[in-house]
């Protein structure tokens, strides 16, 4: 298949770009594709920690661009799953260390060897984002169902459209069905109504995301957590599979007492 380069971006910080990049990379690799996850956040890298590979970094992609090493010396192979690699960013440099043209050149190199190149974009709309998006063909925009996140996502989508990225698709992250039902949180349709792009995934709020991030074990290594299942479905949709969107469960059903009630077969 032709290589696909996807930038994962959001505008707003802290909405789940790095989490999405790490989990989708693992899910795609476990489906048999050769995948590289590129950390586009120079100076504030986190993808290495999210993937649990921080201790194995020797070189980064700026070293590659500056000719200090070959590309395969900078790539960190994930030993837990075949065909998954990380290309880390430099932590000791800043975003002006690289140009859009250099990122295009890097993407050109990666395109030759990988089925999927997932680029974790930094937050914001300035040069960091522009460089991360420059070499990409398509984009996934992460937004949480909050007014500020949706507004920032709208801004980013406008910029991506001007850069002629296609397709640009949406992941609604950290949704809490209970709050949506009570009218305290935007629902997915509200977000889609404003952003007007295709939806590729809905990820529920899930405590296991924090635990997995701290451990450096992307959720999609296991099958059980709701967020893990959501990311796996997104990965399948990215590859072209027609995967239906499941009904979101009420998240009030996940506390200790609710668990006890379920154990004894008592309905709420």
């Amino acid at each position, binding site marked *: 298949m032709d290589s696909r380069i996807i930038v994962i971006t959001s505008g707003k910080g802290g909405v789940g770009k790095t989490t999405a990049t790490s989990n989708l990379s693992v899910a795609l690799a476990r489906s048999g594709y050769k995948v590289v996850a590129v950390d586009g956040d120079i100076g504030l890298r986190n993808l290495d920690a999210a993937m649990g590979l921080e201790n194995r970094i020797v070189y980064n992609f700026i070293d590659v661009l500056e000719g200090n090493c070959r590309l395969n010396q900078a790539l960190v192979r994930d030993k837990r799953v075949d065909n998954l690699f990380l290309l880390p960013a430099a932590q000791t440099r800043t975003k002006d260390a690289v140009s859009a043209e250099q990122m295009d050149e890097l993407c050109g190199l990666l395109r030759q060897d990988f089925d999927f190149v997932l680029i974790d974009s930094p937050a914001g709309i300035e040069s960091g984002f522009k460089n991360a998006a420059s070499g990409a063909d398509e984009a996934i925009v992460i937004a949480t169902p909050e007014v500020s996140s949706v*507004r*920032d996502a*709208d*801004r980013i*989508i*406008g910029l991506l*459209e001007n850069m002629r990225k296609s397709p640009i698709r949406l992941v609604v992250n950290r949704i809490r069905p209970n709050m949506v039902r009570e009218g305290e949180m935007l629902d997915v349709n509200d977000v889609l109504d404003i952003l*007007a792009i295709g939806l590729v995934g809905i990820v529920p709020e899930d405590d296991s995301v924090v635990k997995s991030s701290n451990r450096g074990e992307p959720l999609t290594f296991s099958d059980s957590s709701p967020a893990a299942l959501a990311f796996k479905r997104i990965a399948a949709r990215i590859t072209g599979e027609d995967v239906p969107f499941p009904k979101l469960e009420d998240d009030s059903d996940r506390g200790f007492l609710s668990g006890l009630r379920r154990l004894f077969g008592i309905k709420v």
Partner: protein
Amino acid sequence: MAENMDSLEDRNNFPERDGGPEIILKGTGYGVRMILPEDMSDDALLEELLHFSGDAARLARGIGVVLDLQGRILDRSFMLRLLSEFVWTGAFRVLSWMSYNADTLEFLRSSGFLTGEPSSERVERKTGASNSLVLMQSLRSGQRVEHDGDVVLLGHMNEGAEICATGNVFVRGRLKGVVHAGMHGGQFCISAGQFEARQLRLGGKLCSTLGSEMEWWGKSVMISLENDSLVVRELKL
């Protein structure tokens, strides 16, 4: 390239195109206005311009051209290519530059380029019909339109988008952004299919006390300034 048939009859100067956006030539009192479609990529646009030849090109060289960039976001590198590969190489005399993208206008003005319609046409327009800009799109957060005349937006205007017009502003869909109608003064109005803007500007007046508690919030309204007061009329069909 499509041309206004009132002014140019010979279609043989332009290459055939199968669908897709086209450069449009309009004959005007001040010269040839070249409308450059914003949804054409920079490379494709330059390639198309380089094919501009024949009688139309000779006419344009003789009387001058106005380059209408529509909503295209102009950056330095494309501007330099446009100048060097088309304007200077083709020996075209550019009378002015037009755009409704506020960032592009700012870039052109700060770089010393004349913007808007050439002045003789501008004088005529004060007594003639309004100059309406019709946009068949929605405006996203951060997008800004500036226009000398009326603006008709056949889409939604998201929060964080801005429209500044010397005339009226009509938004077919949901209006959540900031609109300034009548920015040089005068009696103008703002109309929206679904009004949800927290602030609006009419003439020299600013209203920032708008909110969902108002009975016309979310409804189809026309808003004007009468005797220094905001007058809101609900539009019902």
